[in-house]
């Protein structure tokens, strides 16, 4: 397993990335200046103990949080100088984000949840009908399309979350502990789905996980400990 890459035009490039949090009167340094890059089509797993800063790093890669210092380059774009509106567009079109607790919108159906980025982008839904059908087939929930999330199992909800992340054909798929709330059977099936997506769509995948077993589904692992990369 490699821990660094030195590609000429990486999909994701992180330079001197720092993130501090205020905890009461104390400022805690969570990420202490990270430098690394990820190539297009890579499947990278970020591992590390609790509190090491894995999820914080993923949120920064996903333009969901702002760094204290340093830069994240996403497909050549500097996230640190991007306006909120442009970050929103980036999240809709270029990135797919999957959360540990699925984060589906409870009052929308499976179909509507999957189409959410398209709806938010204001594009005609008809243009994405084929893509929707394809994703429903891939996640195996064609017959549950009109169900609301509450009527689905955890594994099914996580599949819907992945389909939602993929509806715009993003270049990057970010997953925060995708199997953290699933049993082993569902976890296996989900990891296979992610690996298929990485292979079939050439989507760059970055996942945060605690599990050595699921980390090996990727082709590279980044170890994080106390906010710094470990070789």
């Amino acid at each position: 397993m490699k821990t660094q890459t030195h590609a000429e035009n990486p999909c994701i490039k992180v330079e001197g990335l720092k993130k501090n949090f205020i905890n009461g009167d104390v400022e805690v340094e969570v990420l202490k200046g990270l430098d690394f890059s990820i190539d297009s089509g890579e499947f990278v797993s970020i591992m590390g103990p609790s509190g090491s800063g894995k999820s914080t790093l993923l949120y920064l890669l996903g333009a969901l949080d702002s760094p204290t210092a340093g830069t994240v380059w996403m497909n050549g774009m500097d996230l640190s100088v991007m306006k909120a509106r442009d970050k929103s567009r980036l999240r809709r079109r270029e990135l797919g984000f999957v959360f540990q607790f699925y984060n589906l919108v409870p009052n929308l159906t499976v179909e509507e949840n999957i189409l959410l980025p398209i709806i938010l982008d204001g594009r005609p839904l008809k243009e994405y009908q084929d893509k929707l059908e394809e994703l429903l087939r891939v996640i195996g929930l064609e017959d549950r399309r009109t169900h609301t999330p509450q009527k689905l199992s955890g594994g099914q909800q996580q599949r819907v979350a992945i389909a939602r992340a993929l509806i715009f054909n993003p270049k990057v798929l970010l997953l925060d502990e995708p199997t953290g709330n699933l049993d082993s059977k569902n976890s296996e099936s989900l990891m296979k789905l992610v690996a298929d997506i990485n292979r079939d769509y050439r989507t760059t995948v970055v996942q945060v996980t605690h599990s050595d077993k699921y980390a090996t589904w990727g082709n590279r692992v980044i170890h994080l400990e106390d906010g710094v990369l470990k070789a």
Partner: protein
Amino acid sequence: MKIFFKYVLRTMLEKKARLVLFLFAFTLSTALFFASIGLTDLIVDSVSRPIVEKTEGNHMRIVPEAGDAFFDMDGIRLAGIESYTGTIVLSGVVQNMDYQTAAIQGRKYDSLSAFTFANSPGADDFTGPKAIVSSRTAGLFSLETGDRIDVLFAGQTHSLEIVGIASNEGLFYGDTNRNFEVVIPYDYVGETLGVEGLYNHVSAVKSDDTLAASIALFNEMNDDFRAVELYNADLVASMANQQVNALMLMLVFIVLVSGIIVYGAFKLIATERRRVIGTFLSQGATKGTIRRILMAEGFVYGLLGAILGVLLGVGILYALNDYSSPLRAYGVVEPFRFDPMLIVYAALFSIGFAMVSALVPVWRSARREVKDIILDIREPDKKKGNLTFVIGILLLSGSALLSYALPTVAIDVAPLLMLLAIVGVLMVYPHVLNVLVLLFFRRILPIFRLTALSVQNVRTSTALRGNISVIIIAAISVVTVVSLSTSLVRTVTDAFDSMRFDIYVSDIQTNDPESRETIMSALRGDHRIVTESIMETTYVEGNVNGEFAVAEGIDPALFDDFTAYINFADDEGSMLDALKDPAARNTVIASTTANRLNLDVGSAVELDINGIVRTYNVTGIVDVRLWNSRDMFFINLANLREDHHIDHGRIYFDTYEDPEGFAGELQDFFRGYGGVVQTRDEARDINIENNRQFSRLLSAFSLFAIVIGSFGALNNMFISYLQRKRDFAVLESLGTQRGQRNRILLAESLFCVVFALLVVVLYGSFHARLVGQVSSFILLPMDIRFSLVVMLPFLLASIAIYALATLPLLIKTKELDVIEEMKME
């Protein structure tokens, strides 16, 4: 957008109780807004309709410049008028109809075409001792054509044959069993009075589009006659405004209570949906999109509130219309109408109110980093408490300074001052609470334990503090209404107590000196009456240059002693001294009149009473407080009699007998003159009852504020509970029992109520002063006092209502799933 709309509707329907709360708050606020605005037209209609109907399509009254009571119409030029009709109008008493008062109309045959007859076998030959009455009067007194009625007018009793029964329209529209019209042939009345060919009432139809232009043209082209409007619509509207202003005051309370509740509820929405909001943001929604979705929800609530509020408002107006119709007892209800634009105003109010209330929580909902929102990481408290406290203190002290140091200015801005003071209280109390709890928490913890925890929770929970705000406003609305009602009763009672009389005779229908003298001689000769206490007054409407005016004829030698309610004292003794010589034609006017007509001491004023204009000198201006309509010219009674030919009036006197029994005996004597005899207690009670009806209306709206407030309090309790669900789960995992949890919640809600009421009690006296200044602002000046004893039952009832509101929360907390909550942790 279709999916977003579906999402908004689904989320709205998800929490039924909250939907009901929102609809309740918006519906009641909008309904009250609708009813308050619509009430002006309604009151104007109910007052003016009988007057307008009675004018029979006429717009002006024509009076001779010479001031004669009876005059001929020769020489009236048709300028500004299309036509004119002359009649003789007198008051009389129908002796064989239980001595009822009647308005006698001497009319010519050709003017009868204005009537629609149900039965008129003898109306074609309308001469001699005949009469026409309305079908309502005929029904009330079982009259038929051919029957005879004995009518006393011009000092004689006339036996008149009923020759026609007309429908209850036009002249007869306002007929009641206490006062109705009797139309008698003009020639017969003229002959009886010896004024053939002369008239004392000439009305005309305008020819120009506007009444003012018609009057101006007529007056320009006629030297011997002058036109005045038949009734003053502005005055009726200003009377209505008083009640509308009071309703508006209640609207302010309801909007404040509702606003805080809606603000809290939207905060709850934003809190509950943080994860969903975060999800939307993580999928690329902009902060603007999130705000638009939430505001759309506010819009839909506002729209639904508008629809229901307008419906309820129409219902309230309909009921008020029915209630306020003067002829309701006879099954005649004024046609119900409202300006359709009111619907637009109400919709704008409701939607605007919903969106403004939602704005801050919605704005804050998407303010932070997406990660913080999605992981529900709360914003650390910013130290803004001290600034809020300082602003609150400034608002309170500023309004107090203005109220006490510059009371005249304070009255002009009283509603604003009251609002600022309430906002000040709401900004100050959290700091006081904070200090008190921090001061005593450690001391009370070992003794009260769970209660101490509850008190600490109230200090730290924004939602529970929101509860205190809601209860404070609702309680202040109660204090306002109760203060107004009790002060109104006290003011009326004080006024009557300050008057020196045992018996009061009103509605005497004679207008000839002989009848009046007969009455006065009878009273002076009665050994049961304190002769030197007999005092007459006359209250009569007129105008000053077309502006409505009321003259109160008094005996200046007696009136000052008669009532201590009005203080006529000036540097030289009494202002009334200047009225003692009728030849001087002096007048003392009410300060309200002085302000309205822009008059001052030294002004000369042309007072037109009974169509006769005389110039009076204003020699004094007096604060008449709530005396009669608070708007009047006091003149010598002799001037009214000699200059304006007014002889009817009211009589006050003391008796050596028991007033109640003696009043009953006197009623038989006065019945022949249409007079109504009342003891002082009866007159006072009738006056109080009339004022109480309005107080009841205000009380109903105050109750609305409490009910909305209790719904809101429950909502806030839920917000607070949801926010602390994990804390409760932790407490449960440490061994806290469900009963103890319930005690904490109950103690929290009771502490909120008790603390809020303590604030209101402390603020009450100052608030009462502000209510007094608001009452002056709405031209109903009263000395408002805050009485804790009077307030106590209302405040205790509030405690009970809010305690009851806690029960649903206690039932709901059964569902606390410790494992689920801890897992989330």
